[in-house]
């Protein structure tokens, strides 16, 4: 009996040791550990998925030289700070923090860990090893606005939008400017739902916009396909940001303003490995291959597609900028005159709507 017990104990001990060995064996090869923290569940589509695709591209390039750790669905708050801390403690050298709410905690961590590199989504604070990154969604939204202008009958466009932060305000303004470049009678209504992920609220808001006469919907930074499905059911063309949701609106999908973080993430990891990473505000658009517009609806006429492609080429080449003057705000005041171009800082801190947006900004 004793012998049997000893045997069992030994087996157990061996099991325990092997478990620990597996854990340490990974450290032996010394790959670069990359940690990604996302605010919402990683679904087949949406913001978090786009981030995962980005780090997957890093994995594809570096193979076994990197190890990817993804922690999904973490609420912003003091617990997120601890989880980030733990990620650093577990040896992650390169961290991607996927939401603006991770900013203050992440920045503190970055200052304490000078050798590690941090990329932070949607924020505005920088440090030597801490780069906020944002997409110039407004470039893609401008093109969507052109297409919407051709397809709308009511000349009313509706936007369901997350938070009234400059990134999303400038996207709505870009959309409006694009639409009004084709048809100046078009107006845009916006509903702010103050959430990245609230399927019920997003759906209700989309329905309210349709009831108000809109026949084109824009799902602005919503990590659920709710608005897109409402569009398909209600017969309104609809588009969204970050990743294609065509599967949810097979006939009414206008297209997607996709973000492809792969080039940026890969370049940042390159820089980190080379030891010359420099924290700076990374504001990336079509020229950087980060903002990509695709999945165009076949209902858009060939003429319009040609126009859109020409505009896109001009934006990429720099011949045209979405925020070229003249720009007029909601109150009818001229912000900049013809021939001038809005400064980057003014776009990054945008807190006003262009003429044509009906809804006031939440104050």
């Amino acid at each position, binding site marked *: 009996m004793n012998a049997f017990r000893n045997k069992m104990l030994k087996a157990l001990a061996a099991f325990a040791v092997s478990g620990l060995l597996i854990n340490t064996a990974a450290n032996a090869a010394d790959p670069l550990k990359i940690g990604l923290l996302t605010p919402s569940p990683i679904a087949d589509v949406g913001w978090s998925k786009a981030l995962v695709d980005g780090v997957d591209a890093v994995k594809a390039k570096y193979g076994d030289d990197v190890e990817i750790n993804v922690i*999904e669905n973490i609420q912003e708050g003091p617990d997120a700070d601890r*989880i980030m*801390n*733990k990620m650093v*403690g577990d040896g992650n050298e390169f961290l991607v923090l996927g939401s603006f709410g991770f900013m203050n905690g992440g920045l503190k961590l970055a200052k304490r860990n000078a050798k590690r590199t941090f990329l932070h989504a949607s924020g505005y604070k920088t440090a030597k090893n801490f780069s906020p990154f944002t997409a110039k969604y407004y470039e893609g939204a401008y093109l969507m606005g052109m297409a919407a202008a051709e397809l709308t009958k009511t000349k009313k466009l509706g936007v369901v939008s997350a938070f009234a932060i400059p990134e999303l305000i400038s996207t709505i303004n870009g959309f409006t400017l694009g639409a009004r470049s084709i048809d100046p009678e078009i107006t845009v209504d916006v509903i702010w739902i103050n959430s990245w992920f609230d399927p019920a609220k997003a759906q209700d808001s989309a329905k309210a916009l349709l009831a108000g006469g809109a026949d084109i919907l824009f799902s602005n930074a919503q990590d659920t396909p709710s608005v897109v499905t409402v569009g398909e059911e209600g017969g309104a063309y609809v588009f969204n940001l970050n990743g294609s949701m065509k599967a949810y609106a097979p006939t009414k999908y206008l297209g997607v303003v996709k973000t492809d973080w792969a080039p940026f993430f890969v370049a940042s990891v390159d820089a980190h490995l080379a030891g010359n990473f420099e924290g700076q505000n990374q504001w990336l658009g079509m020229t950087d291959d980060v903002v990509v517009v695709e999945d165009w609806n076949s209902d858009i006429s060939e003429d319009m597609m040609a126009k859109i492609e020409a505009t896109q080429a001009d934006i990429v080449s720099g011949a045209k900028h979405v925020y070229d003057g003249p720009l007029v705000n909601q109150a009818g005041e001229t912000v900049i005159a013809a021939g001038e171009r809005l400064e980057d800082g003014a776009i990054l801190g945008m*807190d006003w709507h262009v003429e044509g947006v009906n809804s006031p900004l939440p104050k």
Partner: protein
Amino acid sequence: MQFKLDRRVHYSKAMLIATPIMAVGLSMLVCTLLLLVLNKPVLLTFHSFFIAPFENFYSITEIFLKFGPLLLIAQALAVGFRAKVWNIGAEGQMIIGAIAASSVPVYFVDSTSAWLLPAMIVLGALGGMAWAAIAAFLKTQFNANEILVTLMLSSIALQILYYLLLGPWKDPMGFNFPQTVMFQDEALFPYLFDGARINTSIAIPIIFTIGIWLFMEKHFGGFRLIVGGLAPSAATYAGFSSKKAVWSSLLLAGFAAGIAGMSEIAGPIGQLQRSVTSGYGYSAIIVAYLGALNPIGIIFAAFFLAVLQIGGDVALVSADLPISAVHVFQGLLLIFYLATYTFVNYRLRVVRPITQATPKLTS
């Protein structure tokens, strides 16, 4: 066949101590099965939950960071539960406490007065009490069910928080992000150690616990409170007021939850933002019951739940467990604990329906 639970007249003290051990054993068994199905490392997961939280100093301080608010709120709630006042809205009382306390650094941004923090503590307590007073008033005046009222008030509190963050209290330099300014150092509890987030606010729950223990065990007022809840009419004959029990229970909970909310914003968070409670208001209900509504038991229960939550965060990162699996594991532990606890106090009796038919009446 029917099952009935009979209260045991004599129950074994040894079993009462064995209960938590059995609960842990049973839930570990079920978890092992779940982990095997999920194909996750079993030993590493248990290590993350029960050992890793104690492995380094930082992690231990984090346990106490969570322990504080859980202990504070649970002690106050338990007093109410013993008086049969079902306040499940500590979450909302916490939020209002945090809001009331934040008004000081929000309106006195440049102040470096030593009175900032004391003022915030007082306002936090008053805020929580005011919010709980609504439920107490409705209960005593109109006999409105306090379960519903306190729960609904939590939703209202959250909306008030969102309104303030998106509107009047928004950080003017914060690019419209829904958060206030970062508070000045004078508005924060001093840290106990360098590099850890644990701060002097931990003293409050400890002093509070001693006070509650003295009140409930040694003071006649505690007895009156319990009688008032258990048997309102008996209490009336004895000259105790059942209304008083409602008021004092709710105000006490509001006081504790308000200070807990204040300690979060003046502690690990350092500003008012959208998530301030980390769910402590709800977790504290579990703590109160896990601790058998006993001031000493609650100390252990709060510590246990804090370890579980820190362990869950570790498992997320180190054992690559999805966050939902972490919640399942935590839930299993609690369910098994409550189940075993029930069987220690109650005996299961199988009641067989009388199968023998009543003698037929012959006509």
